[in-house]
């Protein structure tokens, strides 16, 4: 079993599924010979040919619309947006068509497609290359929004996303694409969608997060442990449909919650989780829920970019504030 990075988990899942399901096709700009700008599709064109790893013209609208058409014809397309900042031209097709096809036709035509995009900041990229914009999709009915945070979850969740009969927006936290390796068996075993993963058990406070911030949140839990504070860490993984039960169970146990998100604070997905806690767990709380988020600003160019990303220190400080409140 080889130790692989998160992006290799993506490649491994694509290769596995393309080998076992001839209806799976990969499309996007540069996905072919070049293997994608981040090399997520490296080697696939050689293995499966230029028609199953389909280099499109440079037009995100076309990539998304072709994906809808392919899926409607019974193919399983996996489309790549080079950066999540380029996903906006795809939104009309994803929102107006991919997400609605099943409902519009009462199930006659469906759209089992995956829209992949490298997501989030922290890699010293130019403007429009570093957004965290998952919340733009979590309010769209009929879509799954998935954000893996480790090599194993990238592999297992992408397999699940491709096999899912409905459209999935699959955001890949590019800051941790190559951060570390872990052993991931290439056995085609998918991980479940629509469930949160409890990464660390704890009793004093619940830390809820997703994507690249899982790293800082786990570091914060370590730091808190050194001070005798037991933090439970939850990786949401599938934002919508949300597995709120896992979060509720944890909050009921700890009575305290900090939500960590890379996206701007206002109307981000953390607001949804906080609202659900207020609706369903208010009387379990010992202190107000606190969010640690990106500021409500455009992602800065890279000289200041790190100041936008929630740091381990900010998460620790927020947790201590919650603990001090009750």
């Amino acid at each position, binding site marked *: 079993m080889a130790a692989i990075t998160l992006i290799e988990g993506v490649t491994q899942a694509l290769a596995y599924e393309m080998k076992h399901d001839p209806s799976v*096709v990969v499309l996007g700009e540069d996905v072919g010979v070049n293997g994608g700008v981040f090399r997520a599709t490296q080697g696939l064109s050689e293995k499966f040919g230029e*028609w*199953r790893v*389909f280099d*499109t*013209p440079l*037009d995100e*609208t*076309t990539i*998304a*619309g*072709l*994906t*809808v*058409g*392919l*899926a*409607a*014809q*019974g*193919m399983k*397309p996996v489309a790549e947006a080079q950066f999540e900042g380029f996903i906006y*031209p795809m939104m*009309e*097709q994803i929102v*107006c*068509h991919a997400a609605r096809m*099943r*409902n*519009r*036709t*009462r*199930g*006659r*035509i*469906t759209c089992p497609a995956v829209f992949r995009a490298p997501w989030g900041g922290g890699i010293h990229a130019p403007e429009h290359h570093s957004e965290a914009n998952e919340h733009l999709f979590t309010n769209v*009915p*009929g879509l799954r929004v998935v954000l893996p945070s480790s090599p194993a979850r990238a592999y297992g969740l992408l397999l699940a996303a491709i096999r*899912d*009969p*409905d459209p999935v927006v699959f955001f890949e936290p590019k800051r941790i694409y190559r951060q570390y390796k872990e052993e991931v068996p290439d056995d085609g075993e998918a991980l479940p969608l*629509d469930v949160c993963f409890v990464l660390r058990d704890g009793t004093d406070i619940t830390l809820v997060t997703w994507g690249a911030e899982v790293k800082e949140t786990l570091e914060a839990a370590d730091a808190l442990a050194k001070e005798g504070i037991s933090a439970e860490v939850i990786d949401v993984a599938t934002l919508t*449909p*949300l*597995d*709120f*039960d896992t979060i509720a169970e944890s909050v009921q146990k700890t009575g305290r919650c900090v939500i960590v998100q890379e996206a701007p604070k206002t109307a981000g997905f953390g607001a949804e989780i906080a609202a659900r806690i207020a609706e369903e767990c208010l009387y379990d709380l010992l202190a107000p829920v606190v969010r640690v988020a990106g500021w409500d600003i455009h992602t800065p160019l890279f000289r200041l970019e790190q100041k936008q990303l929630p740091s381990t220190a900010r998460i620790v400080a927020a947790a201590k504030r919650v603990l001090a409140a009750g």
Partner: protein
Amino acid sequence: MPIAAKFEIEYLQYLDPEGKPVRKDLPDFAQNLDYMVELYKLMVSTRVFDTKSIALQRTGKLGTYASCLGHEATHVGIGASMKPEDVFAPSYREYGAQLYRGVRPRDVYMYWGGDERGSDYPDEPARHDFAWSVPIGTQCLHAAGSALAFKLRKEKRVAVCTIGDGGSSKADFYGAINVAGARDLPLVAAIVNNQWAISVPRKIQSGARTLAQKGIAAGLFCIQVDGNDIIAVRKAMGDAIERARKGDGGSVVECVTYRLGDHTTADDARRYRGKQEVEDAWKKDPVKRLRTWLEAKKAWNKKKEDALQHECEEWMDKEVNTYLETRAQPVTAMFDYTFAELPADLVKQREEAMALEKR
């Protein structure tokens, strides 16, 4: 001076507005008068259907409805050019093509009457066609994606999309014909140029002399036809579709027609276009044109016309009654098609909605 590229756009017409042939080389299908009568019957059915739809809307039995008055030759011509195995990605008024492919009037009434089941066509070949696309031009890419699927699977099928003159300004249209040209996809994009995109006239929609020539930039075969002459539409579309089926590439066919009615029942075209223009357009009526030609060929007469009108009225009345007698879906149906399997959160919301119904 060296010339990098030169192009010409052919204009195809067989019948003039008076129904008189303008050229002698009628295509084979047009020499089969029984076939032409069948096409005529569907054009008349489409018009009766459209009249009925507007009446239903005016009496509060339909929601907003997009009329197809004046488009009968273009729409029926497109539908008749396709084979059952081909795939159609329509805009929201191509009923003539859809009726040809097995969409029932009651389906259209259901859709505009506010019921999603109207897009669940039960009969082939319409069953494998796309439903109406309300966002302008987006369906062109669905057709291109379908064409890509056909090419990948080595199926001898063709994807046909229709787009308005306004829609031909959209990036989706260009994206679709561009990728079709780059990869030789079996795509035929039919521009239904009815001169008006709601209130915006063709002349300020694009500076291009023809809309067909937009396909030149994408490397496709391009032609402009008289969209009120069903022989021209059927010939150009038939040739384009068969060329695509043979693997010889995609086409853009511009059908020049006219929107005789309002954009939708929520629109009042008198606000932005002159009475004279519409009166002049009626002189090019596609239904009358074909009837005049068929009558000259002794293939049609008043008696047959009266019988057809009666038959169409009866058909539509039956369809209207079926639509009106169809009960609304239960409230649970709002939830049941959001995902293949309902997520836990939606199960709860569905139960909440059901409980409200029982109160």
